[in-house]
């Protein structure tokens, strides 16, 4: 059996919208009509030990709701979840002892106390034996470079320092699953990089399974080997990062700098996407235009000084996917009106 089994999980939320007008608003004191919204709608997947999964989707897609159900603090309306052989919300405390969670936007550190004290508290809370505790603290302090701020009260730390501290605290008890809910939100490039490297090496050393939600596709690129995408609560895609990127290989980008230009390229399959003074960028459809032909055309029409060829980044593929689901919804709405 897989480490995490999610099958046909749905969760709906009741929401209440205040109607316009005072009279109607008063009326709702007595009778309310609720709107039911599926935050997660019939989602199934399973994750093996040691996988690094990027869980992505637009804002409000149901990512955090899924994480909450997996970590046992939210009960689904229907469907089953098993993590490490137990149902997380039925045995919340037992489940909690073998998971680690970092909410990028919520701190679990004590504001007034230095990290050392929070470590000590977590050691007791999770009943971590001395050997593991010392080993982990040493390892995290070194890998996350926490020496300088171990003794400062948390309220005096910078966001980057705090996030590193959050990670360390969440991992102190050697959890088998680590849930990261937007761990790099608001961080600078250097700290982001530190955190990504840290998660990678953690996974290699301890075989920790990681599920990560993010809007930063570099996180996915550098940490994950599998992508699960949901949108409007529905599972849209579940692939390895490798397969995912292949989707983008039907086209590539050519950015060329030139000293003189006769005429821009105007053949089918080649599309100018950016025009600057001495630099043009084309999007090339690899099925329609062979590379040799492209090179010949380029040398015919330009005096090329430099040329760069780029494959689409995950970012772009994701953007297309998000847009596509958005459009589908639009057309569904139109159908509805008709």
């Amino acid at each position, binding site marked *: 059996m897989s480490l995490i089994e999610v099958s046909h999980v749905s969760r709906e939320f009741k929401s209440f919208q205040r109607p316009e007008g005072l009279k109607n608003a008063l009326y709702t004191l007595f009778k309310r009509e609720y709107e039911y919204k599926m935050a997660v709608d019939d989602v199934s997947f399973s994750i093996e030990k040691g996988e690094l999964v990027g869980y992505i989707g637009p*804002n409000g897609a149901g990512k955090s709701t899924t994480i909450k159900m997996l970590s046992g*603090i939210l009960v689904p309306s229907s469907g089953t979840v098993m993590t490490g052989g137990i149902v997380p919300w039925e045995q919340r405390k037992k489940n909690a002892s073998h998971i680690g969670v970092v909410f990028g*936007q919520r701190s679990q550190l004590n504001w007034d106390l230095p990290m050392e004290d929070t470590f000590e508290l977590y050691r*007791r809370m999770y009943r971590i034996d001395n050997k593991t505790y010392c080993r982990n603290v040493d390892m995290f302090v070194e890998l996350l470079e926490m020496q300088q701020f171990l003794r400062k009260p948390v309220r005096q730390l910078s966001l980057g320092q705090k996030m590193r501290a959050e990670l360390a605290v969440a991992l102190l008890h050697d959890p088998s699953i680590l849930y990261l809910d937007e761990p790099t939100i608001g961080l600078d490039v250097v700290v982001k990089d530190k955190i990504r490297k840290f998660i990678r090496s953690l996974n290699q050393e301890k075989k920790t399974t990681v599920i990560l939600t993010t809007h930063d596709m570099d996180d996915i690129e550098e940490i994950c080997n599998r992508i699960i995408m949901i949108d409007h609560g529905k599972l849209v895609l579940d692939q390895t990062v490798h397969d995912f990127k292949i989707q983008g290989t039907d086209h590539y980008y050519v950015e060329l700098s030139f000293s003189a230009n006769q005429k821009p390229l105007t053949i089918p399959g080649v599309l100018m996407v950016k025009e600057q003074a001495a630099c043009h960028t084309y999007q090339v459809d690899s099925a329609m235009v062979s590379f040799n032909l492209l090179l010949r055309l380029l040398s015919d029409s330009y005096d090329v000084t430099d040329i760069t060829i780029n494959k689409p980044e995950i970012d772009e593929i994701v953007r297309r996917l998000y847009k596509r689901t958005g459009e589908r919804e639009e057309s569904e709405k139109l159908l509805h009106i008709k």
Partner: protein
Amino acid sequence: MMYMTLIQCSFKQQIQYKWNLLFHIIGDFLRIYIKVCIWKALLKVGKGIGSDFKSLAAYTVLATMVILLTKSSVARDLADRVRSGMIAVDMIRPISLKWYFFFRQMGENLFDFLFEGVLIAFLSWVIWDLPFPGISVILPFIPCLLAGIVIMFYIQYIFGLLVFWMKDGTYTNMITNALFVLFSGIEIPLWFYPHWLRTIGEFLPFRYIVHEPITIWLGQKSGREIAMTLIMQGFWLLVLYLAERCLWSFIKKKLEIQGG
């Protein structure tokens, strides 16, 4: 073990705010002083209200000590955390939410009691030359006081949990606080109350938090009455425990956590 560390953490947290402590001491002492002066004046005017000055002064000081030990922000904390969704963070730990809040609060209260209460009590005892009861009174007083602390916490916690439905805890807090002030005897000893009000109070748990422990201390209770009080406290603890369990199992199913 974990709970000891939690108390320690609360302690360390409190120590950071040393000016708070100073003003807290001054404020509480002033309050006691004013109250005692009022009692003095009342006793001069109204002869024969059935109480002597020393027990009223002792009552006032003890009531302040009980406040220090029982005060609890759990209802407000819970409300804030549920409203902001921060409750998610508390729920991913392998511990009971209730005891986590309880011991954190106890850490704070013990700190206040040791660094503030003891000093105030000592001063008051010297200034008004109050009597100190014998060991046979202190022995039952301690469990009675502890039970009172737990009762108070349970009440606050249960009302705090209601925020999972109401999404806002302001008014439930106001109601619990009003009931507490009226029926616990924290401001005025219950023996001054009219008969009908006392009768209502008999059926509520609040008097077991302040009034009952203090009357034990003042030596106004016989052995039989003390035993009865302790039994009643046990009864209320059981009732509150069951109520909390019911509520919690219901909340677990209904739980919605705010925010993304």
